[in-house]
């Protein structure tokens, strides 16, 4: 069997196992979707409770629920959320668009700026600007996301009034949405940049001591040329996996940012459904995240072999 086929088979097996786990894990937690359905002071008669239980399919034996779960997945039906009164697929689609608007620019900015700035910092280790940059990004990297989001909101929205305090839009126009999303994107980008910066810096620090870098210098190449023509590509390898995973988990949202900025994204959706034991939403969201992570890993593998000939030869 060719390596590509082996890899594909491994992915299919992983998908099967993870999708099964998506069914098992929510059900291993205490409670079920009915536990938290009506509010803390609502009274449910026994008749109404069993009626709802049967409507949700919770009265079926576990193996029948499992088979029904697979049947709906294979027919592309992710089920219905009685907590959010909507089909799971339309719920996920409506939240996904906001999550993508938040995460794609942030992670892209994080990947581009983090690698470039990190690369430069690693290459010019010890210079004043590098020290400032490293200290700044290290500080961001160590700051809890919730705190940083709140701090950014306090400074830029509350004190300076540059951005709105919450939500995804007011009027719904393109500029209005961009105005609402700008600050969360900035905060998320900062996190992404700082993490990628630290990894890339470390990676370039190792590469700059390599013989091929010394050889390039001996050939008479300038500093930045050596970095971007030779070292950058090699230093990029560890960061590819991380960026691929970032994009894999793109649909899991950014919970803290979504909470602070009162945004209806995937992070909030998954968190709420976890608290309310909303099985269909949990299963549907995890399925999407699973597929994305597996695809991203597959792409990272392929990218690796494209960049690194050693992997290709193996």
């Amino acid at each position, binding site marked *: 069997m060719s390596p590509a086929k082996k890899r594909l088979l491994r992915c299919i097996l992983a998908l099967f196992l993870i999708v099964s786990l998506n069914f098992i894990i929510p059900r291993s937690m205490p409670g079920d979707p009915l536990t938290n359905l*009506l509010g803390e002071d609502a009274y*449910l008669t026994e008749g109404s409770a069993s009626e709802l239980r049967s409507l949700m399919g919770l009265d079926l034996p576990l193996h029948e629920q499992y088979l029904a779960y697979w049947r709906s997945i294979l027919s592309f039906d992710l089920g219905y959320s009685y907590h*959010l009164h909507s089909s799971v697929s339309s719920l996920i689609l409506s939240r996904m668009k906001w999550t993508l608007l938040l995460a794609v620019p942030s992670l892209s900015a994080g990947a581009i700026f983090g690698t470039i700035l990190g690369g430069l910092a690693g290459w010019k280790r010890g210079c004043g600007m590098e020290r400032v940059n490293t200290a700044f990004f290290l500080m961001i990297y160590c700051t809890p996301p919730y705190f940083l989001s709140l701090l950014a909101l306090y400074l830029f929205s509350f004190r300076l009034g540059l951005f709105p305090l919450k939500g995804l839009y007011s009027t719904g126009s393109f500029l209005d949405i961009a105005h609402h999303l700008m600050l969360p994107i900035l905060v998320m980008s900062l996190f992404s940049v700082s993490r990628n910066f630290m990894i890339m810096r470390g990676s370039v620090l190792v590469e700059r001591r390599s013989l091929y870098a010394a050889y390039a210098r001996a050939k008479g190449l300038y500093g930045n040329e050596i970095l971007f023509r030779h070292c950058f590509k090699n230093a990029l390898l560890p960061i590819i996996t991380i960026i691929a995973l970032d994009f894999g988990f793109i649909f899991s949202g950014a919970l803290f940012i979504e909470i602070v900025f009162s945004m209806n994204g995937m992070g909030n959706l998954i968190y709420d459904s976890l608290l309310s034991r909303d099985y269909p939403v949990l299963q549907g969201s995890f399925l999407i995240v699973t597929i994305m992570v597996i695809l991203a890993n597959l792409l990272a593998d392929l990218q690796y072999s494209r960049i690194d000939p050693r992997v290709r030869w193996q």
Partner: protein
Amino acid sequence: MKHRLGRLMAGFILFMLILAIQGQCAGEVSGTVLKIGSPSVVKSASLLGDSSLGVFSHLSNPTLMKMAENGSIVGLTADRAEVSKDGMIWKFFIRDNFYWSDGEKLTPDDVMFTFNYLADKSPSAGWIKKTVENISVDGNAVVFKLNKPYSRLNLEFATYTILPRHIWEKIDKPLEYVNNGEVVGFGPYYISKIDTDAGVIYFKKNPYWKGSSPYFDSIEIHTFSNMDVLSMALEKGEVDAFYKYAGSYPYTSIQKLKDTGNFDFIEKDNIGLTFLAMNLKKEPMSDLEFRKALSYALNYSEILNLDALGYGQVPNAGFVPPSMMDFKETRKLQYNLSKARELLSEAGYKDSNGDGILDGKDGKAIKLTFLTRTDYQRPTELVIGYLKDLGINAEIKSVDSSTWIKQKDAYEYDMTITRSTPWGMLMHANWGTGYFDSTRTGEGVLHNVDDPAFLKLCDGILAATSQSELKEYAYQVQDYYAANLPGIALYWSRIVTPYNKVFTGWYSDPLYGIYNVDSFLEVRKA
């Protein structure tokens, strides 16, 4: 590379500035708007399915009855209610001057439809089917014929919104019905749009409203997932007042608002309260003497000061707060550790091996499981400390809400701290009985009392046919709580609602606070 990065950054900053200017222009709206900020996020535009939207919709679709400031139940959509002497027939006389926002007149038929419809299709209104034999219209009255007397019917009807028949009769599955657009209502305002992504519910003036005209053209409810951000929005003037059903503005943030000088506060005694609940099926909690000793071991003033910053008062053993109707003065709870120790010693709880830990009646050291949720972490730690002072070991088991409900229902705990909501205190046979009656189920319900005397009291209240009878039962229930301590109130809290001084005329009722029709008819710019 450096130049490119610099240019990119400059372009980015310019773009941000354009957005900021544009955003500020977009924020200007025409007409007078009153903006309420709330942490109760509406998760779906389902009128009958989303509990937060259910409360907010009271402005567009008022309830049949309402609670007056003194806790009595008076008419809202109905002018008044009458009950037959045997308590089997209730008549609600519907006002003649209500019109739906689409121009149709509200009729008794709409009211009859609403309760038949809810009984049939809403799980939380399943009790109607069990209690009401028949609903009919008699002139301008809607008549409910019951299969057994139910004294709390008018109170129940202070919580259900009235629905237009001509719209809802076409909706077969109300729980699956989601409508982000206009919701036809007959209140002074109707919902014009529910935007869950923007986190705003928009209300417009009902053009067919015949009552006194409200002062604002529109109302907006802005929901926030984060309380700190909501506080910033209040301070910044982006919202004009705060509202949370069954909840106060965070006590820790009140001073900051006071310091601005821009806010006034409505302070009301809360009907709901925070209390210590015990699993009465297990030793030693099933021992009344143990519970009595425990009631002396808790430092109520300290809990009140640390958990509620003093916004409240030390409670009575009778559990029910003075803000409820027919409150009876019972023994004031007090902290007296030596008395607690004495009571335990008299009851046979001794430290036989001198390790500082008391032994239960089975001779083994007492070790309790204290089930708690993150919202109650602070009072839990305090109570654990008091138990330790008493010589009782307790282990904290911190869980999320769903796990708490499951374990509480399975009686897999010894003690827990929880709260009652205003409606929770009023549900079932009133005066908090709904939390203790073992025949009840529900998310917040403890169902830990199966004492026939208590159950008989509950049945008596439900079947009472006169106010004087109800009052007598209310006193008996409070005496029962004081004598048997199925739950120990930790403090009676106050609900603090801040609003911008620019606006006056707020009115708060004990059930829904400032979120009531009267309030929105009276609020105006000073």
